[in-house]
Every structure is written in C-alpha cells, then in structure tokens.
C-alpha cells in the first residue's frame, strides 16, 4: 500500500504542509551529495529519530512501509560487498533509506488536501484556471486510491491462479488485471459524476 495519512497523530501533523514539502525538497536534494559513511549514518539516524518522536506505533507503521526499500538495500549492499566497495554501497543504501524515509514521513503526516493546497496555490499563482486545478486535485486523489486497490486486485488474481496451479503466475495475469482496472475506472467515473455536477 502506498503511504497514506497515518491514523496515529504525531506532532508533524500540525506543521504547515508547505514547510514540510520545502524541507523534504531540500533534504532529498542534499542527501544526494552525501558521500561519507559517518555523515550518512548520522543523517539516517536523525530520520529514524524523527519517526521515534512520532511514537512506537507510528514508527512501526513507518518501518512496515519501508520493508521493500530494506530488501533493495540488502541486494545493493551484497553487490557492493562482492565487488569490494562496501563503503560506497553503504552510503548509497543509507542515502536511499534516509530519502525514502523522510518522504514517507511527510506523506504519513500530511493530509492529502493540505499537500495539494500547496500545489494549487502555486498553480494559481502561475495562472492555471480553477477548473483545471480542481481536476488535477481529483486525479491525484484518484491515483492514490487506485494504486492500493490495483495491488489488492493483483493479489486476488494471484490467489485464483495458485488455487489451480503450482506454477508461478507470470505475465498472463496482466490482462485480467488490466481489465479489472479499466472496469473500475468506469465505475468510479460514475461515482464521480453522481456527486460532482460536471467537472
């Protein structure tokens, strides 16, 4: 599931979204220029600490969201160990964990509409029409909702496959998944129409 606003309240929820986004931008940018193990460790530690401040359950939720990144990190580390550049590998991995970690933290503590309000204000300033901005806001919300739903449907199809075969499901599940997805798009379009009075 993509990171969504966490149900556990933290001090970060109250910070203004614009400030959080700006900080995240600067941080993500800066992180790419880290190149010593010591500094990278310190920065990653700081991100971990930031989760800790949010409380135990919040931190656990954050950890769960990071699981795929940890896997990736292991692979990269193994590769760099194999070619004998463990320090370089460690920096890359820590950079990754710190950057994704903070991105998740911002997402988990920022309501989507607050996040979008920032973007909307920016767009308004450069003269984008209100109608176009409303559509944009809606599409963003929809992507965030559709992604976990698609992932769930994919998981269901994998079960249907495993119920009748011992082989691994492969690309053949892509078409039924695409169909389920396209049909959902139609149904959600109706739901949207039912409550929007024209976009």
């Amino acid at each position, binding site marked *: 599931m993509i990171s*969504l*606003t966490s149900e556990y309240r933290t001090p970060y929820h109250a910070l203004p979204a614009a400030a959080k986004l700006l900080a995240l931008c600067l941080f993500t940018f800066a992180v790419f220029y880290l190149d010593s193990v010591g500094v990278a460790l310190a920065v990653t530690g700081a991100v971990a600490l930031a989760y800790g401040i949010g409380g135990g359950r919040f931190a656990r939720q954050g950890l769960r969201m990071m699981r795929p990144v940890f896997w990736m990190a292991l692979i990269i580390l193994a590769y760099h160990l194999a070619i004998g550049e463990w320090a370089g590998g460690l920096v890359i991995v820590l950079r990754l964990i710190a950057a994704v970690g903070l991105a998740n933290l911002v997402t988990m503590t920022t309501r989507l509409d607050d996040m979008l309000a920032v973007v909307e204000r920016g767009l308004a300033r450069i003269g984008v029409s209100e109608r176009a901005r409303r559509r944009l806001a809606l599409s963003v919300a929809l992507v965030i909702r559709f992604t*976990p*739903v698609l992932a769930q449907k994919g998981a269901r199809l994998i079960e249907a496959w495993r119920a009748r075969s011992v082989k691994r499901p492969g690309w053949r599940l892509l078409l039924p998944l695409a169909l389920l997805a396209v049909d*959902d798009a139609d*149904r959600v379009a*109706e*739901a949207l129409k039912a*409550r929007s*009075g024209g976009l």
Partner: protein
Amino acid sequence: MRDLSYARDGHQVFSGLNLDLADHRVGIIGRNGSGKTQMARLIAGLAAPDAGAVTVGGVEVAKDRKAALSTVGILFQNPDHQIIFPTVGEELGFGLTSQGLDKAAARDKAQDILARFNRPGWYDRPVYALSQGQRHLVCLMAVLVMAPKLIVLDEPYSGLDLATTVRLGRYLDALDPGLIHITHDLHSIGGYDRVIWLDQGEVRMDGVPGDVLPAYEAEMRDRGGRDDFADL
C-alpha cells in the same frame, strides 16, 4: 419517466418505458440483467436516455446536473466503487463543495453528519482502515450529507452481515428522502409502499409488496427448479 428508450453499447435495455415513481419507498426486483442497474443510472441522471426524459422533482436529471446533485443521490453496491478519496473527511466534503459550499462550510457539515451517526472521530480516518460495513456507512453518509430528495440504492446490502443489514435498513426506513431500493433480498422491501418487478427492460408487475413479492418468488422457485440452466 416518460417514453424512455435507452441502449447501452449497442444493447437495447429499455424501449418506450413509462413509469411514475411518486411513492415514498419503492422496491425494484428482477433477474440478473433485467435492467435494474441501468434504470438506477437513468434515475440518478448518470446516463441520458436516447429518447424520452427522466425527471425527478421537476429536474431533468441527465441535463441539469447541478440541480440533480441536490435532487437525487445514489448508493452503489460496492463501497470500493463509490469511495473516491483516501480519508473520510475528504469523501464527505467532496459532494458538498460540488454543491457550491466553501471548504470551511463543507468541513462543518461533514463533521455534523459524523456526529449524527455517532462517529465524531472519523473525519481524519483513512478509508482503507475501515471494515466493509464501516465503508458502507461512509457511502451512506456521503449521500445523506448532500440532502437529496430521493435516494437510489443499488443492492446496498450485498455482502453485509445480518446485523448490519438490519441496522442500515432501520436507518434507511427512518430517513426523510424518498427511497428507490434495488435488491435481490425480498425481505428487506416487504414493508415498502410499492414494488416493481422488471423483466427484460419492461415492467412485469407493479403493486404492493404483498402482491408482487409472492408472485416473483413463486416464478423464481419454479424457474430454479428446472434442470437446464437454459435461461442463465
């Protein structure tokens, strides 16, 4: 509904249907594919008829979408097809801002309805963390908060447990707006003012539940008793 004709993707669903649904609570029954969902879409103004017109409370719902919003609300079978936003508050606020309210007013009204349903803490709750029954309730609140004069329900109970069904039923019964309730669960519309049995896009029977439901059930059990699946 006057002289209604409607085809979907080349499939003629209704031709020349006339129906006046003035009663407070109307049930609609019929076999799979008889046209119930397409009728719900027409009544809610989600599709425009090819010929004829659908008017609800004087509003031609397919044309005047803005007015239709305060006239008719629709509740789909599956909450996952209805819920658009990641949090409950956003979901409830969406219809209200479409009706022209500003953000603050929409927020207040959304909080109001949450309070009325004893769910004051739900405003910031992410939808994915709610159970199936809870999500049904969110959909219902999202429709009610827009205060429509008529609510169309397309199989709202399918997949819900008995206790939840009974409770939502009581809530719906106590509501002010008129109800049009599509269902395969005959018990749930036993106390309604009127029941319509649709068959292949036409009204097969139309009357009080006491007449229509037993006739429908008898025919279904008879068809169900045959061996051949021929009409599936």
